[in-house]
C-alpha cells in the first residue's frame, strides 16, 4: 500500500475512479453527492480527461452510453431521483453490453423525498429499475477505504463482463471523513475492446453498438447470452463479510453504513453476554445467498436492519428459505436506528 490520506467519502470515489483510469465523467448536480462532480470538474482537466455537467441525468447516462461505446472508462454519479431518470439509459446500456460505473449516493424517497441517508433504492438497483431482464453489479461499501477499493473494482468488473457496475452508498458514507490508503499503482488488466466504436480505419468491418433486436429469435438468443453472463458474474464476483457468526445466537444482516452501526451493537451485546453475528453483503447483486444458507440454522433467528421499509430482507428470506425466522427492523425518511434500538430489538427476539 502507498499513500494514506484523510478524505471525504465522495471525493474518494472520484479519486478512485481517476486512479482506475476513468477519464470521462458526466453528471448532473444533486445532493448528497455533488462533491464527486466538484472533484471531477477540478481534476479531469489536469489529466486530460473530460468533465461535462449535462443538462439532465437522462443526458448524462446517454453520454456515458456514448463514451462507453467509444471504448473509454466512464462514470456518472447521482442520487436517487437522478438515478430514477437514468433507468432508461441503464436498461439500454445493459442490453448493448456497455461497461461503465454508476454511483448512487442514495437519499430518501419516494418522490423528491429528502436528502438524508436511505437504503430505499435497493429494489431499484438489484431487481432492475429499468425495463427488461438485466442485472447491474451492485457494490455496497461500508467504509471510505472500501469506497476506494470497490470503485476501482467496479471498473474492472464492468470491463471484464461488459456490464454496468453500481456503487451504492448513502450520505453517511459520502460525507464521512476517514483515512484511506491508496495503492501506488492500480493494476488494470488489459481489456481488449475490439467491439468498440473507434472508426473502422477502412481496415475492418464496421462495429455496431445497439440494444435493438427486432427478430424474436435473435432477441431471445441475446437474452440467454446475457443471463449466462450474469450466472458467471454470480459465480465469480459475489462478495460478503461474515463477522462473528460461528457461535452467534442471532445473525444480523445489514449493508453499507448500517453495518457500521451493527458492528458497534455487536460489541455492546457482547458485554451483556449476547452473541450476535453479522452477515454484510458487499455485493447486493449478486446477493451472497450462500453465506445465509450456511448459517441458516443459527440457534435463534435472523434480523435484517435497513434504512428502508424492508427491501433486502426479501433476499435474506429467500436465502434462508424458511429454515429460520427472519425479522426486520428499519427506519425511513433519513432517521437512523440507534445502537440501543437495534440491541433492544435483538433482546426482544431472543426473549
Amino acid at each position, binding site marked *: 500500500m502507498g499513500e494514506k490520506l484523510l478524505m471525504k467519502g465522495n471525493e474518494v470515489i472520484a479519486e478512485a475512479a481517476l486512479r482506475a483510469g476513468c477519464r470521462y465523467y458526466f453528471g448532473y448536480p444533486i445532493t448528497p453527492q455533488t462533491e464527486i462532480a466538484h472533484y471531477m470538474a477540478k481534476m479531469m482537466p489536469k489529466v486530460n480527461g473530460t468533465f461535462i455537467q449535462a443538462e439532465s441525468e437522462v*443526458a448524462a447516462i446517454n453520454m456515458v452510453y456514448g463514451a462507453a*461505446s467509444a471504448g473509454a472508462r466512464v462514470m456518472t454519479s447521482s442520487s436517487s431521483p437522478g438515478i430514477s431518470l437514468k433507468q432508461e439509459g441503464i436498461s439500454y446500456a445493459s442490453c448493448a453490453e456497455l461497461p461503465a460505473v454508476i454511483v448512487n449516493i442514495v437519499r430518501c424517497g419516494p418522490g423528491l423525498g429528502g436528502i438524508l441517508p436511505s437504503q430505499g433504492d435497493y429494489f431499484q438497483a438489484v431487481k432492475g429499475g429499468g425495463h427488461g431482464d438485466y442485472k447491474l453489479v451492485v457494490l455496497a461499501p461500508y467504509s471510505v477505504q472500501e469506497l476506494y477499493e470497490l470503485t476501482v473494482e467496479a471498473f474492472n468488473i464492468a470491463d471484464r463482463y461488459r456490464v454496468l457496475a453500481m456503487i451504492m452508498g448513502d450520505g453517511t458514507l459520502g460525507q464521512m471523513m476517514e483515512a484511506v490508503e491508496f495503492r501506488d499503482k492500480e493494476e488494470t488488466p488489459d481489456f481488449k475492446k475490439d467491439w468498440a466504436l473507434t472508426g*473502422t480505419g477502412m481496415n475492418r468491418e464496421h462495429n455496431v453498438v445497439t*440494444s*435493438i433486436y427486432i427478430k424474436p429469435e435473435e432477441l431471445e438468443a441475446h437474452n440467454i447470452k446475457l443471463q449466462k453472463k450474469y450466472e458467471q458474474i454470480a459465480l465469480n464476483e459475489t462478495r460478503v463479510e461474515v463477522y462473528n457468526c460461528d457461535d452467534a445466537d442471532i445473525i444480523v444482516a445489514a449493508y453499507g453504513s448500517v453495518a457500521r452501526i451493527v458492528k458497534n451493537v455487536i460489541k455492546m451485546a457482547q458485554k451483556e453476554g449476547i452473541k450476535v453475528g453479522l452477515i454484510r453483503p458487499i455485493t447486493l447483486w449478486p446477493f451472497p445467498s450462500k453465506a445465509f444458507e450456511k448459517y441458516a440454522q443459527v440457534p435463534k433467528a435472523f434480523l435484517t436492519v435497513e434504512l428502508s421499509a424492508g427491501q433486502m430482507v426479501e433476499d435474506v428470506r429467500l436465502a434462508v428459505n424458511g429454515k429460520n425466522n427472519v425479522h426486520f427492523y428499519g427506519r425511513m425518511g433519513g432517521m437512523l436506528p440507534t445502537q440501543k434500538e437495534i440491541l433492544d430489538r435483538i433482546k426482544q427476539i431472543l426473549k
Partner: protein
Amino acid sequence: MAVVFKRPHALKDVSLPYCPGCSHGIIHRLVAEVIDELGVEGEAIGVSSVGCTYNNYLFFNCDMAQAAHGRAPAVATGIKRVHPDHVVFTYQGDGDLAAIGTAEIVHAAARGEKITTIFVNNAIYGMTSGQMAPTTLLGQVTQTTPYGRKPELHGYPIKVCEMLSTLEGAAFVERVSVHDIKNIMNAKKAIKKAFQTQLDKKGFSIVEVLSTCPTNWGLEPVEAIQWLQENMLPAYPLGNFKDKDMEV
C-alpha cells in the same frame, strides 16, 4: 427505368427498407456520398436514433451506435469527447429530435458539440404510424389530430433551425429539401458543409431536410412531393440560418 448510380462506398450494398417515395433513402445516400468525398469513412462514427431509420446502423459502412429515443446527441457527445478527431454524426427524425429529444439537441448545440446532425423533418411520426409531430403543420390531419392540428389545442410547429441558430454554439444551421434534383444537389452541399464545419472544429452543425412520408400522409409518392412543396416549403423556408466561424 430506374437510373443506376454507383453506390457510395460508405453505404452498404443492401436494399433500404423504406416505403416507396420516402425521402430517407435519398438522404442516406447523400450522407454516404459526403463521407466518401471527404474521405472520412474510416474515422466516421454515426448514431442512429428511434424512428423509421432506427436500424440504419446496418446500412452505413462506418462504425455505428444506436441510441434511445431522442438521446442521439448525448450519445454522440460521449463518443466525440472520446474521439475528438473523428467525425461523429446523428441521424434523427422530427419526433426524435424535436419532441422527446429537445433537451439533448438544444444542449448539444449550446455546448458547441463538434458533431453533425442530420435532421429529417417529415412533419409526422412515421414509424408509429402517423401521429402528430412537433413539426406537424397547422391544419394537418394525423392519427392524433384527426380534425387537423389546431393551435389552441395542439400548439404551433417548432422551427428547429430558427430556434437552434440563436445558440452561440451552433456553427452551421441550414434547412434543405430533397423534392427535386436541384434541391438534392443543394442538400448535399449543405451536408458536406456541415461535416466540414465539424472537421474544422467550429462547433455544432445541423442540416434539416424536409422529407416526404407518403405512407402516413396518405398520398401517392408524386402527390407527396407536391404536398411538400405546397405546404412544407411555405412553413419551413429553405436556406442557411448560420454559418459562422467560432474562432473569433
